[in-house]
């Protein structure tokens, strides 16, 4: 049991960043994710791996520090909660446009505006449909356990560098604040300057050698023809991500007559609903998207052949339901159940909603 720990999701994410060989973290505190920067400040990773941690003067400053470090080919991360992510969006769009790899964690709270400090999932649209301006996509990972909060850090960095694209971990205040058993990954070595040049020297601003032209990192292109070509290139990349990186977990879907679709905390609650429902003879299943973008469309469409219907369970007014509907494509009824503003649905609330829908379907 050497590396089993009881940790908050936020702490697990911070420790995982050190162990993933991250070069830097820039952030600004906000509830309910402040434990990320608190843990890093306390742990002093500079003494362990040389990783730099800095509390920026604002969220906007933090994301632009991330931009700068990423442009040098560094593994760099930031995190915040809903209102703070809104502030970072300009920088995120710039990074998507400049094709810069980085990891951004959003530990969501109830909104809109300053909203509440309790958990929410109302930033789904913001995360998967853009948020910032322009035709861009983030790879969005949705952890539903503290273990996944840790595991998705390294996965996020790997995907970010594989596609030269920002990756977002979309979590919420419940998973950030709860403690569970977590097996921590082994320490990865940080890349040396030489290794960064070897791996990313083709695009990163690591210093111009005589052998090549200078690398330019920018999202600005005043010639429309060139900018359109850049967009074609981005779209091709996004298509390849959609083809290769969809992740999901299908829980008791094989014999399910009715399927809930949920991510993060809602997915945990729905697992209890399956148990409660099956105790009453209702064959329920859960499709849990792990990547919210790219969204697991095909499996949902396939499940629509055998399922009587779908319930999208979210801590918002109904956002992911739109993607579920697109995936189901009219084959079966799709409904939504949600709570807002920091309220968390209880398993029995969701079961009542499921039973109501089943009654409607007949």
């Amino acid at each position, binding site marked *: *049991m050497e590396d*089993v720990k*009881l940790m908050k999701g936020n702490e697990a994410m911070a420790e995982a960043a050190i162990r993933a060989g991250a070069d830097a973290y820039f952030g600004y505190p906000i*509830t309910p994710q402040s434990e990320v920067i608190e843990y890093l400040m306390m742990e002093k990773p500079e003494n362990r791996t040389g990783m730099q941690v800095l509390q920026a003067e604002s969220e906007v400053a933090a994301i632009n520090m991330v931009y700068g470090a990423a442009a040098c080919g560094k593994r760099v991360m930031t995190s915040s909660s809903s209102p703070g992510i809104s502030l970072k969006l300009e920088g995120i769009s710039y990074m998507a446009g400049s094709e810069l790899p980085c990891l951004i964690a959003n530990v969501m709270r109830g909104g809109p505006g300053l909203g509440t*400090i309790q958990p929410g999932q109302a930033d789904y649209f913001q995360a998967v449909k853009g948020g910032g301006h322009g035709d861009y996509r983030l790879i969005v990972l949705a952890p539903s356990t503290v273990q996944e909060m840790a595991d998705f850090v390294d996965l996020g960095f790997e995907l970010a560098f594989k596609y030269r694209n920002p990756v977002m971990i979309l979590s919420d205040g*419940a998973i950030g*604040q*709860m*403690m*569970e*058993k977590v097996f921590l990954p082994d320490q990865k070595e940080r890349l040396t300057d030489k290794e960064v040049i070897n791996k990313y020297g083709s695009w990163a601003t690591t210093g111009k050698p005589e052998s090549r032209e200078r690398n330019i990192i920018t999202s600005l292109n005043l010639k429309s023809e060139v900018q359109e070509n850049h967009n074609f290139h981005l779209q091709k990349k996004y298509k390849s991500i959609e083809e290769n990186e969809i992740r999901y977990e299908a829980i008791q879907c094989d014999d399910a007559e009715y399927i809930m679709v949920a991510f993060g*905390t809602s997915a*945990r*609650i*729905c*697992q*209890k*609903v*399956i*148990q409660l429902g099956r105790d009453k003879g209702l064959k329920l299943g859960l499709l849990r998207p792990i990547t919210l973008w790219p969204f697991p469309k095909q499996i949902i469409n396939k499940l629509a052949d055998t399922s009587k219907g779908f319930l999208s369970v979210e801590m918002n007014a109904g956002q992911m339901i739109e993607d579920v509907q697109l995936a189901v494509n009219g084959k079966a009824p799709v409904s939504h159940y949600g709570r807002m503003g920091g309220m*968390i649905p*209880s*398993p*029995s*609330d969701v079961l009542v909603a499921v039973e109501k829908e089943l009654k409607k379907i007949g």
Partner: protein
Amino acid sequence: MTEEIIIAGFGGQGVLSMGKILAYSGIMQDQEVSWMPSYGPEMRGGTANVTVILSDDRINSPILNEFDTAIVLNQQSMDKFESMVKPGGLLLYDPNGISHHPKRKDITIATIEAVKEATLINRKTFNMVVMGAFLKVHPIVKMDNIHRGLKKSLPERHHHLIPLNEEAIKKGMAKVQIIHKV
């Protein structure tokens, strides 16, 4: 085996840390655990509660609306959680400060005068007296795993306090009273 517990009281009573020690003790006996807090922005004085689950299987929802055990340490929590104990479950409370006592007949009800007992040892061991009382009625973790759990969850500079905490746990075990049994 799965045990779903809510511990509820005022901030500052040690509700969250009692949950943490229970969770660590669960890890020490190789169980899955979850610790889900709910509290306001206050450091002290606000209501605080924590859902702790210990299970031999994968834990599904960390958020529950019925519990095997409710450990209740103030009136507000009694009002909220008495009805959320599963039939046949356990409600443990400290009668100190409780004016409306529980009325249910389909659950086991136990009391521990934890404020009184803890004052005789060290007032800060209040939560360990309560934990001892709980473990006497529901021995879900072994004493040596609690010892290891305490060691894991307390920073090393506080390890000299472990014997005091264990004394408090034993006190709770000795003084718990079962008021109603199903």
